[in-house]
C-alpha cells in the first residue's frame, strides 16, 4: 500500500452564522504517480474545498479540517503552515479555473513564474527568468523570450491557462491539482489544454487531480473517477466502472443528460429534477433522495439514514453510496438506464 497520495476520512467544515457547513464529509481516496483522478460534481459539492485542503490552503482560515492527507507519507493536515509552505508549489501545486483572475494583473507573466521558481530554488533572477522562458516554451507559448515580459491581460484565454500551467509545473511538482482548468475556455482550446496536461504528465510522471463538472473531459483523461454530491463521495471507481457500469442514480442522471450527436434532435435533453441542496440544510438521510427517481424502490431509509459507501460487489474497488440493493440496481440499470446511454 504505497500510494503516493492518500486521503483518509477528510472532512472540512466552515462555521457560519447559520450553523456549521460540512462542505466535505469523510472523504477517502488515493492516487498513484503518473495517474489521474477526476473529481466530478456540481457547483458546491465540495470539489474545490477538497483540493484546497490537499494544498493545506485552509490553514489560517476559519475552516475545520480533520482526517489525514498523506502525500508521500507526509500528513499535510498535521503540519504547521510554515512547513506546508515549503511543499506548496514544490511537491504539490495547483492550477485554477479562471486564469485571468488567478494571475496578478500588475506583474508580468514571467515575473510570476520566476517568483514561483525562486521560492523553492536558490538561484539568481536571471536563471529563474531562463526557467520561466523554458517553461513558457514547454507549454507551447510562441516567442517565449518576448512574451515572458507581457502582462496577463495581453495573453489570450488559452495562453493564460498555459502560463498558469507553466507556473504550476516550474518546480516539477509530483502532484498537480487542476481545478476546472478548461471551464473558462472554448472547446478547441479546452482540447489543447487537456492534451498539454496529458503530455506533461507523461513527461514528468505527475499525479493529477482533475476537478471538473465536465464528464467528457474526465472520460478522456482520468484513470479513476470520484463522484461527489453535497460534500460526500457517492461513487468511486475506474473510468471504465463509472462510465460503463454506473451504480448511483445520480451518476445515471449525469450520464443520460449528456447530449449525443446521434440522438433525436427533437427530443428534450434529459435532466436531473430539482437543484443541488443548500449546504446549510442538507436533506436528511441520503442527500440525493429529494431528486432521486428510485426512492419508492427503497422506502423509508432513503430519507432517514445515510447509506454507507460500499463495494458494488464482494472485493470490488468500485464503491457506491446508495440504499438500492445491488440486484435491484442492476435491473434498473439494464432496463432503464443503459438503453439511454
Amino acid at each position, binding site marked *: 500500500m504505497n500510494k503516493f497520495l492518500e486521503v483518509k476520512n477528510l472532512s472540512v467544515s466552515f462555521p457560519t452564522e447559520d450553523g456549521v457547513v460540512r462542505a466535505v464529509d469523510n472523504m477517502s481516496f488515493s492516487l498513484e504517480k503518473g495517474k489521474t483522478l477526476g473529481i466530478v460534481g456540481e457547483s458546491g459539492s465540495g470539489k474545490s474545498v477538497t483540493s484546497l485542503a490537499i*494544498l493545506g*490552503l485552509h490553514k489560517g482560515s476559519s475552516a475545520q479540517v480533520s482526517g489525514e492527507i498523506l502525500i508521500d507519507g507526509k500528513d499535510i493536515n498535521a503540519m504547521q503552515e*510554515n512547513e506546508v*509552505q*515549503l*511543499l*506548496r*508549489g*514544490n511537491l504539490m*501545486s*495547483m492550477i*485554477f479555473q*479562471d486564469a485571468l*483572475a*488567478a*494571475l*496578478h*494583473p*500588475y*506583474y*508580468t507573466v514571467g515575473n510570476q513564474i520566476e*517568483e*514561483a521558481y525562486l*521560492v*523553492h530554488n536558490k538561484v539568481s533572477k536571471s536563471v529563474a527568468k531562463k526557467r520561466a522562458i523554458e517553461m513558457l516554451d514547454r507549454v507551447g507559448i510562441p516567442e517565449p523570450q518576448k512574451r515572458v515580459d507581457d*502582462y496577463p*491581460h*495581453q495573453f489570450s484565454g488559452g495562453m493564460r491557462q498555459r502560463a498558469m500551467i507553466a*507556473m*504550476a509545473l516550474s518546480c516539477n511538482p509530483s502532484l498537480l491539482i487542476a481545478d476546472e482548468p478548461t471551464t473558462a475556455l472554448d472547446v478547441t482550446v479546452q482540447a489543447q489544454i487537456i492534451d498539454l496536461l496529458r503530455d506533461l504528465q507523461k513527461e514528468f510522471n505527475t499525479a493529477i487531480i482533475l476537478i471538473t463538472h465536465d464528464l467528457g473531459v474526465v472520460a478522456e483523461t482520468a484513470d479513476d473517477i470520484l463522484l461527489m454530491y453535497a460534500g460526500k463521495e457517492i461513487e468511486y471507481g475506474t473510468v471504465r466502472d463509472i462510465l460503463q457500469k454506473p451504480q448511483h442514480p445520480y451518476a445515471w442522471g449525469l450520464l443520460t443528460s449528456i447530449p449525443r450527436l446521434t440522438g433525436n434532435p427533437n427530443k428534450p435533453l434529459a435532466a436531473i429534477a430539482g437543484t443541488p441542496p443548500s449546504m446549510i440544510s442538507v436533506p436528511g438521510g441520503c442527500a440525493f433522495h429529494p431528486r432521486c427517481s428510485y426512492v419508492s424502490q427503497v422506502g423509508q431509509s432513503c430519507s432517514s439514514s445515510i447509506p454507507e459507501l460500499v463495494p458494488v460487489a464482494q472485493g470490488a474497488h468500485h464503491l457506491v453510496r446508495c440504499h438500492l440493493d445491488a440486484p435491484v440496481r442492476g435491473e434498473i440499470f439494464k432496463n432503464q438506464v443503459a438503453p439511454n446511454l
Partner: protein
Amino acid sequence: MFSYLLRRLVSGIVVLGIVSAIVFGIFFILPADPARLSCGKTCSEELIVKIRHTLELDQTLPVQYGRFIKGIFVGRTYLSGTPAELKCTTPCLGYSFQTDQPVTALLKDRLPATASIAFGASILWLLIGLSSGIVSALRRGTWVDKFSQGVALGAASLQIYFVGLVLQFIFVNKLAWLPSPGYSSPFQYPLDWIKQMALPWITLAFLLSAIYSRLTRAGMIEIMGEDYVRTARAKGLNNRTINMKHVLRGAITPIVTVFGLDLGGLLGGAVITEYVFNIPGLGKLSTDAVANLDLPVITGTVIFSAVFIIVANILVDLLYAVLDPKVRIQ
C-alpha cells in the same frame, strides 16, 4: 502616451478657460460695483468714473475678459499712453482692491506656507494611514483592528477647527511645548519651520489619515479575497511576501488616486487649517479676499487652485498608467 498627455493638457486648458470665465463673470453678477469697492472711503462720483476707466471697467464684457486672459499670458498695461501708465507683467491677474498689490505677487508670497502645510501633512497622513490600515487588515477582527478603526471613525468625524483648537490649547497655551503656528522659511529657519508647522500638520494628518486608514484596510481586505492572492499562496510564498507584494500592490492604486486629488486640492489652499492657525497661505488669502469682496484676488486664487487640481488630475492619470499595466497599453 504623448498624444494622451497632449489631449489631457488641452482639455485641462479648456477647463481653466471655463473656470476663469465663470469667476470673471462674478464681477458682473454681484450687486457690488468693483469701481466703488476699490474707491476707498474718500469717494466721489468723479473718482469712480476715473477708476472705472483705469480698471477698464467701461469696456464691454468680452473685451474685458479678453484683456484679462491676455494679461495672464503676455501681461497688460493700464492707462497706456498716459503719464500714470501702469505695467502689469506676465502673468498678470490684476491688482488687489484692498492693498493695491499685484495679485500674482500675493499668490507667490502665500504659496510657500500652503505648500509646506500640504506636503508635511501628506507625508504624515500617508505614513499613519497606510500603516494602520495595513495592520488593521492583517489583524482583522482583533482588538488592534477594532481599536485603530474605532479611532479612525472618531477622527474622521471630527472637524479641523475643533481638533486644531484643542491641540493648540494643549500644546501652545497649556504645555507651551510649541510656538504659535505660523510660517518661517524652511531654508532659513528649518527648526522654526517644523515647530510652527507641527500643529497644522498633525491636525490635518489626524483627520486624513483616518480616511486613508479605512481606505487601505478596505482595499487590502478586498484584494485578500482575490484569486491571484490564492495563487500566490498556492506557490508557497510566505505571508509577508503575499501581503506586501501581492495584496498591497493590488490595493494601492485607488489610494494613489485619492492621494493625488487630496494633495492637489490642498495646494490650492488648506482653507480651514490656515484660518484656524492663522497661517498666511493661499487659503487664508482667499477667505480674506471673499470677506472683503476683493474680486481680483478671488479670481486669482480660484484660477490658481483650479490649476493645481487640474495638474493633480493629470498627474494621477499618468501615475495610474505607471501603476496599472492595463492602462499603459491603451
